[in-house]
C-alpha cells in the first residue's frame, strides 16, 4: 500500500487556514502526547476508571489491551469527551493535551474533538454520499469552496487507500460500500479534519481479515503524522503493530510501557497471565 504523503502538495491545513485561520494543531514540538493524571470516572456511582496515570507517546501506536469490561473503551471515549453523553457521569482528575486539561469545563469541545479523530468499532458512514462523508467535517469547520473540498476529498481518500476504488462514484451513498471500504471511508473522514490523535476502538473487529490487514497497514503508515491510540481485543494485533502498550484490568492500569518490554518481559504477574492467555 502506497500512501502518497510524500507528494503532499497541499494539506487541509493550508486550505482551512483560508477559511478559519485555525491552523495550529500540527504539533511542532513533542508535547502532543496525552498525559492522564489521577483520572477517576464514575457512572451512577459505579467506579469505572480507577485512579489512572499514564503517558501516551507522540507519533506512536499505543494499544490499550485488557479483558472486556475493563474500561478500555470508556478511557478512549474520555479522550474525546464522547463520554459526556452518558447519564450520571462523574469525572475527576486531568487529561492533559498540549498543556491544557481537556476535562476542564470551558474547553471548547468541538475544537478539541476535531483534534482527536475517532474510528469506531463498526464503520458508520453518515447517511450521505461518499464525497459528502469526507467533506462533512470540513464544511462544518467553514470550508465552503468546492474546489478546495474536491482536493481535500481526493487527498484523504488517497490517504485511506480508497481513492482508486471509489473515484468514479463519489456521489453514490456511502452505505453501498463494503464494510471494509466503509471503515476506510470513516478513516478518511476523520483525517480530513486534520486531527493530531486518532482513536480507534477495535477498529478492525467487524472486518474481514483482508480489510483489517489493510487498516492495520494504514495505521502503521499514519503514525508518521499522527499519534494513534487503539483499543484492541486481539493480542496478536497488538503484538503486530503496537509501539507502546497499556494493559488495563477492572478499571485500573496494571502495566504500561514499550511494547517490546511489556510483551517480552512483563513486570506484573497479572499481565503475564493475560498475555499467556490464562484469562481474557
Amino acid at each position, binding site marked *: 500500500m502506497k500512501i502518497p504523503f510524500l507528494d503532499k502538495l497541499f494539506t487541509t491545513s493550508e486550505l482551512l487556514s483560508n477559511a478559519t485561520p485555525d491552523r495550529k494543531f500540527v504539533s511542532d514540538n513533542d508535547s502532543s502526547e496525552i498525559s492522564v493524571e489521577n483520572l477517576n470516572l464514575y457512572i451512577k456511582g459505579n467506579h469505572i476508571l480507577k485512579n489512572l496515570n499514564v503517558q501516551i507517546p507522540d507519533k506512536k501506536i499505543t494499544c490499550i489491551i485488557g479483558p472486556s469490561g475493563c474500561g478500555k473503551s470508556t478511557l478512549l471515549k474520555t479522550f474525546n469527551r464522547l463520554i459526556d453523553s452518558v447519564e*450520571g457521569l462523574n469525572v475527576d482528575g486531568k487529561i492533559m493535551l498540549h498543556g491544557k486539561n481537556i476535562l476542564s469545563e470551558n474547553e471548547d469541545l468541538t475544537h478539541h474533538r476535531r483534534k482527536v479523530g475517532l474510528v469506531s468499532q463498526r464503520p458508520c458512514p*453518515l*447517511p450521505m454520499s461518499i464525497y459528502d462523508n469526507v467533506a462533512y467535517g470540513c464544511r462544518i469547520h467553514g470550508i465552503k469552496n468546492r474546489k478546495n473540498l474536491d482536493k481535500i476529498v481526493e487527498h484523504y481518500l488517497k490517504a485511506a487507500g480508497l481513492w482508486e476504488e471509489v473515484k468514479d462514484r463519489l456521489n453514490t451513498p456511502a452505505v453501498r460500500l463494503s464494510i471494509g471500504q466503509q471503515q476506510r471511508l470513516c478513516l478518511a473522514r476523520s483525517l480530513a479534519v486534520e486531527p493530531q490523535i486518532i482513536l480507534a476502538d477495535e477498529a478492525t473487529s467487524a472486518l474481514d481479515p483482508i480489510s483489517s490487514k489493510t487498516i492495520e497497514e494504514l495505521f502503521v503508515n499514519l503514525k508518521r503524522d499522527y499519534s494513534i491510540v487503539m483499543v484492541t481485543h486481539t493480542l496478536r494485533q497488538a503484538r503486530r503493530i503496537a509501539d507502546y502498550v497499556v494493559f488495563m484490568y477492572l478499571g485500573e492500569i496494571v502495566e504500561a510501557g514499550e511494547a517490546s518490554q511489556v510483551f517480552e518481559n512483563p513486570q506484573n504477574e497479572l499481565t503475564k497471565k493475560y498475555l499467556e492467555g490464562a484469562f481474557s
Partner: protein
Amino acid sequence: MKHFEEQMMRFLMFVATLIVFGFVFSIVYAILKQGWGSMSWDMITKLPGGGFYIGKEGGFLNAIVGSLYIVGASTILGLIISIPVVFFLNVYLKSQSKTAYIARLAYDVLFGIPSIVYGAFGFTIMIYFGLRTSVLGGIIVITLLIIPIFIRSMDEVARNFPRDILDATYSLGATRWETIAVVLRQIAPGIATATLLSIGRAIGDAAAVLFTSGYSDSIPTSLSQPAATLPLAVFFQLSSPIKEVQNRAYAAALVLTIIVLILSILGRLISSKFSKNKL
C-alpha cells in the same frame, strides 16, 4: 386434553383475525358501494348551488378545498414545530433525562386528549381573542391536534437512531446543532410516515373543526373566513331528511375514504421499504 385446548384456541384466534378482516372489508365495502352510487363529476368539481340543501344542483368542492387548506397549512406548521422537538429530545437530551421523560409523557397525554376537547378549548381561546369561526381557527386547532402524532411517531424512529453516527459527527468536531442535517437524513422515512399519519388524522377529524372553522358554502378567500371540511360535509348532509342530500354525504364519505386509503397505502410502502414488519 391440552392438545384439544391448543386446537380450539388456534381456531378462536383464527376467527378473531377473520373478524378483524371482516370489519375492514365491511366498512370499506359499505362506503365504496354507497358512495359510488351517488358519485358524480359534479360532486367534486362544483360548489353548492342554490337550493343545494333541498336536493338541487351542486357539489362539495368547498369542503374538499377547505379540508386541503386546513390540512396543508397545519401539516406544514406541525412539521416545523415537531421536528425541532424530536431533535431536541433525542440529540440534546441524554437518553435517561428527566426532562425527556416528562416531555414524552406530556406528548403522549396530549395525543390521548379527545379532539372534541381540543375543539372546545380552541373555541374558548378564539372567543377570548375575538376570533370568529375561521380557517385560521381550524388550522390552529388541527395543528395542536397533530403535533403529538408527529412527535410520537417521529420520536419512535429517532430513538432507534444509531448512537454511532452521532458519535462520529461529534468526533469530527460538530456541535449538537450541526448534527441536525445528518439526523434528518437518517430519519427521513420516519418523517414521511409521520407526515402521512398526521395528514390522515387531520383530514378525518370532525370534532375539532366543528367549532373552530365552521362551515361555508363558498371557498374561503382569507384566513378569517369560515371554511367547510370533508368530515363535516358528511356529517351535516347525512343528517338531512332528503335523499339527494344524504347521497352527497355518501359521496363525500367516499372521497374521504379514498384519500385515507391512499395515505395508508403510501405509509405502508414507505415503512416497508425502510423497516421490517412493524406496525
